[in-house]
């Protein structure tokens, strides 16, 4: 029996095999590269095949081809919040260190949030129930105020028992505007209502919101003048940065009437939410 001759190696591969491999990786999350590369390819052919998978948006680790870690993470969080601890094991082909880097990257532009619950880190995509930066600031102010009130009681042996005025405590609690703030809550101040409206209108990456888009929904609860004053107050207290109009013929007279004026009468038609962390 003549010896079996090995089939000659080739540089080229069937493009359909790339689509098939991509489908397999997307189904499983990660697959060893050796199980994806078709047989009979030269080293150049193998490199070209892996390059084609990279062009399809897949990531190559040392030995595996996987759906990018960022994408896996965001897809997982889209199903609901997850504790940071142990999450790497539930993602395909992602190490603990890679997960941490992905979290740092995505949290930097607020694509995902790290929420502390019972002293543990939970990850979530923004759902609206997490405290915004400004609300955290209010919360810290509240904590400081309550600590100060508590300290003022200063119960010592030689001092008579002390108590607090109910109005002072309520005033302190008002410092935290987070959970009570909704547009329908008419007891919230105009500034708080506008801030919330700006948050809803803002671009998640840049924090930029168009002022008329944020003011119009809350006009039923305040006048134009109140809205403009509230915007200026938010700017001066560092919650937002008001910015001059930069469009060409984009601002109607009605819209301009909703915007405050800045230096030399410039119309301030955009606001940027300030990260106060």
């Amino acid at each position: 029996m003549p010896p079996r001759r090995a089939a000659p190696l080739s540089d080229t591969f069937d493009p359909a095999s790339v689509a098939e491999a991509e489908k397999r990786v997307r189904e499983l999350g990660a697959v060893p590269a050796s199980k994806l590369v078709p047989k009979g390819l030269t080293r150049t052919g193998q490199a070209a095949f892996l390059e084609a998978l990279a062009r399809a948006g897949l990531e190559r680790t040392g030995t595996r081809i996987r759906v990018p870690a960022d994408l896996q993470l965001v897809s997982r969080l889209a199903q609901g919040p997850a504790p940071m601890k142990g999450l790497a094991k539930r993602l395909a082909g992602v190490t603990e260190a890679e997960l941490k880097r992905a979290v740092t990257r995505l949290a930097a532009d607020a694509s995902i949030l790290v929420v502390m619950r019972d002293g543990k880190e939970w990850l979530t995509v923004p759902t609206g129930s997490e405290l915004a930066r400004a609300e955290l600031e209010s919360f810290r102010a509240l904590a400081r105020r309550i600590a100060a009130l508590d300290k003022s009681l200063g119960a010592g042996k030689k001092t008579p028992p002390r108590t607090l005025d109910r109005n002072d405590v309520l005033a302190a609690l008002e410092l935290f505007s987070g959970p009570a703030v909704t547009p329908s809550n008419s007891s919230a101040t105009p500034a708080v209502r506008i801030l919330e409206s700006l948050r809803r209108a803002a671009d998640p990456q840049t924090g930029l919101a168009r002022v008329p888009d944020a003011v119009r929904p809350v006009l039923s609860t305040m006048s134009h003048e109140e809205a403009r004053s509230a915007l200026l107050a938010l700017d001066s207290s560092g919650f937002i940065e008001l910015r001059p109009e930069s469009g060409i013929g984009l601002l109607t007279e009605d819209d301009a009437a909703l915007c405050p004026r800045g230096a030399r009468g410039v119309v301030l038609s955009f606001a940027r939410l300030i990260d106060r962390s």
Partner: protein
Amino acid sequence: MGAVFSLEHADPWSVDFIDVPSINAHASDAIASRIEEKPGQAHAGPDHLRSSSVLVLGPAGSGKTHLFARLRKRFGPAASFVLVRPEIGLSMAPRHMLAAIIDSLHRRCHGLETRQIEAVVGSLLSAVHQTDRRYPMLRIEELRNEADLRATLEEVIAALESRYDELDARYLEKLLLFPFASPVDRRALLAWLSGRELDDTQLKRLGLAGALADSEVIPALRTLAVAAAFGAPIVVAFDQLENLVDGDDGNDRIHAHARLVSELFDSVRGLVIVQMALDAEWHQRISPVLSQSERDRLEARKLALLLPGADEREALLAAWTDVIPSSERKGYFPWPFSEEGWLEWRGSPGVTPRMLMIACREAFEGKSELPPASPHGSLEHDTAEERLESQWALHVDRAKAELGDAAAQKRGIDRERIVAAILCSAHLAGIDASVPQGRKPGDVRLRHGAHETLVFVVQQPNARSAVASLNKAISAAAAENVVVLRERRIPFPATWKSVVQPLEELRTQSRASWFDLDDDHAAHLLALHDFLSAARSRDITDSRGRPFEESVVRDWAKKRAAAARWMIAPELVKPGDAKAPHRAVIPVVAAEVAAPTPNVLPSDGPAWRILQELRVASVERIVSEVRATQPEVSRAAVMRELRGAGQAIGWIGAAIVFVAGGTP
């Protein structure tokens, strides 16, 4: 001494500007980190090297262009910076992109004599040979003395090719040769590397058959980006993207830009793509028309430029006033403001660096220090006129400098640039102008009332391509009015025999005419294009820093252009009008067809006197000699004298004249 307060429009290529690094440090750091990671990725191999994209948004005067200048200063020769601004009415193709990149690479690195293209090559050679890539020119100087330079460069090409399959070895070879080439070869190499056409002499010198083919442009971009990524990564900054918005003409140019950026992002490795636009224009006009896949790429990372806070405003004021000698300052901080005035400016909302600088200038000039809260009011008409006039003059100067650069490289202005300028001037004159789409002939179609003209811009430096364009113009002239336009300073050389026949044929076409675009036309048309682009980007400002409305600038430009001789669009649209002041006769090239008709002219004119001394000379030499002694004499007058000299002067082509005998 108050010149520092007049720099409210950042010059992206400036080497001498004032910077407060903390302002928008987040944006410069984000871009810098992407630049810094490229050499490591390039060394790690193709699996690791990717292009990055950052979108920077901010209102006018917030420092977008300043960011570019700051990064140039920060990186010096360690990165290569390319600034691209969209042409009005035209979409940018990959070839145009390649030309823009090479043009920018030919600029000098910040504060150095080294050109960016030399830094790219030097850094690459240093990286491959594992020497210190901080000093790219050192490696080039070392190799300059090497006996077998070609072999060394071949090794570099082989080393790169073995790792990056997509490289075009021929393009890489020409790129690597650039720093070692003679000045003449450098011009030719630059033209070829930029995807432009070369003349026959240049092709012979380089041993090439022709310019880069369309199919070679993307591989050339890939090669350039990978080569640069090793030591001086290319940062492509698309500025003034609001100019992609085309009024009522649809969103074609926005999508064309998105396709180009997507292609660069997906298929070219190692670029850092920075897009800069006005925030409102991007959010309301550009982003909404992008498809999801386009948005994923163009808005992969969005950054808003921040306005300076109170402390940063103080830092800005201190930095500006620091450069004024203490002996010339009239007070301490916050001079030139009063204490009260400064407190208002310090806390006023929505203040951009540009607005603050202009307030400084007003306070410095002793104009009444208006508090920021005071309404803008209407400017005096004269003041507005003066501001527009001075900014127009600035644009004309820049356009003249651009023409000077092209002249130094002995090439014409790019066809696309001239087409965009004609489109712009036609729209301003109320003439319907469009670019023929698909494979239809011509560069610009102009329509006005009953008149319609097809304009061919024949700027080619190569006889073959010029003939091809002329033939298309001849075919078109059989059916409609045609104008063929070429810059006057790049006449067809006498050696281009193949052009004679089509020019003769063109002359027989009653509906064809020729237009000589002289430097004055070109400079003003380019300036008009850039001036109107700047108006759209809110960069044409009144004396208080407030942008003029685009309609105001257009109206002013319309008035300014109405009587100007450089406003050529109305003239182009009415061909056949022999009395048109700039319409030229179709030129002659070869001596045998050049038969100037005798004319009655001064027999002892200045041109004739100079030619008698020189016996044989180029027309340009005679023009310059005449103007050296009589500056008031125009080039046209010299040409009239020469053409009217009859048998006394012999012609070789259209560029050389000699004394043939007799008297004029």
